[in-house]
């Protein structure tokens, strides 16, 4: 029960932080930090997969509503929520994940978390930016934006592990 309440609270904070603070950060018009998928990244290991999908859907819809974009963030976030369990399996340590731990630097180390966050953010940004452009004409300039934004978002998410989600 406690963990559900905590996740709902985190959901609201993440959405508001994204639209009120992070959306005002932009560097060169190329780099936008979309950090809100940290909510999906930090969900407990044993969360049922359908809960992850629904949570991803609601999260994306929340961002879409504030940014006046139709369904793009929803599509990208649901994609991440779908791929996350496979990715966690792929990155699992030899003895699997310990009970009572969360996917954070504190439990599994910097390198593990960096790989995990980088892949999730990259998938999210690829889907999001290409859906936004919705054509292959500007393929390479879009790719540049994806790469730059991925670097920025990932480093912000990793940093948050030291300041906000320490344990």
């Amino acid at each position, binding site marked *: 029960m406690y963990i559900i309440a905590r996740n709902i609270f985190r959901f609201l904070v993440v959405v*508001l932080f994204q*639209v*009120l603070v992070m*959306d005002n950060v*932009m560097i060169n*018009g*190329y780099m*936008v930090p979309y950090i809100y998928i940290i909510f999906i990244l930090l969900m407990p290991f044993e969360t049922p*997969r*359908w809960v992850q*999908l*629904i949570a*991803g*859907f609601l999260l*994306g819809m929340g961002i*879409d*509503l*504030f*940014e*006046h*974009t*139709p*369904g*793009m963030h*929803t*599509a990208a976030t*649901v*994609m991440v929520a*779908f791929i996350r369990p496979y990715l966690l399996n792929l990155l699992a340590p030899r003895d699997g994940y310990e009970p009572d731990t969360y996917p954070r630097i504190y439990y599994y180390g910097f390198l593990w978390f960096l790989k995990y966050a980088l892949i999730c953010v990259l998938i999210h940004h690829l889907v999001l930016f290409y*859906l*936004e*452009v*919705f054509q292959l004409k*500007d393929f390479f*300039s879009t790719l540049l934006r994806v790469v730059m934004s991925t670097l920025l978002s990932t480093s912000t998410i990793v940093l948050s592990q030291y300041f906000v989600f320490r344990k």
Partner: protein
Amino acid sequence: MRTLLRFIQKYYNLMLFLLLEAIAVALMVQHSHFQRSKLVGFNRQLSGFLYSRVEGSREYLSLREANEQLMMENLALRNRLDQLSSRVDTSTVISVYEEPFHYYYMPAEVVHNSVYRQYNYMTLDKGKKDGVFKDMGVISDQGLVGIILESSNNFSTVIPIINRDFRLSVKIKSNNYAGILQWEGNNPLYAMVSEIPFHVVIQEGDTIITSGFSSIFPEGIMVGEIESFSLEQGNFYEIRVRLSNDFQSLYRVNIIRNYRQEEQLNLENQSG
């Protein structure tokens, strides 16, 4: 039946995933519908409220710039007033009373603004209560900004030039040839003008202004200057325009109400 159930049991996560993605794509495909839905309308009020709170605290940080901008605008207006008042005599003043103004300008502030997306929107702090409705024009003292998309009681959203849905008839000031202004989605400083025929003589640095064909904007509002142009295959120029407005720092704007818009549209509809 049994195998079907087992199939669903086995793949329900995949099916849920596909269903949710289908909903997202459906929203994307009919996105103008989505923009008009009830949910978005409610959210527009909520986000307008939140954004105006945040903007309120940010105003303090840019007071100096705002002051300077206002001073410059004041100066320009005073000069213009002096020029005009020497031209006007009493007889024309009387005719102003006979016919109420054609265009009415209303000040507004930008409470939320995006510039780096493909479909950028802007939120203003004036809404239906202040007489702001769909399809009114928005300009700043530097030139054209956009068109009102929707308004709620206290807020309204704008489609600026830098939204890929934006389209407006503009013309070249020096020779009055009209073309279509739209945005390519790359850079918030530039837009494209198409449908100017190739025999027209144009130069880099020529001024682009609104054409006044649209019933939304009066004629002659500054849009930008020609940065470069090329002849695409066919008989038309592709003109790259450097926009006169810097959308990243836009703050004070004016909303234009055209009191003869309805009359003009009715007449045009009747004429087919």
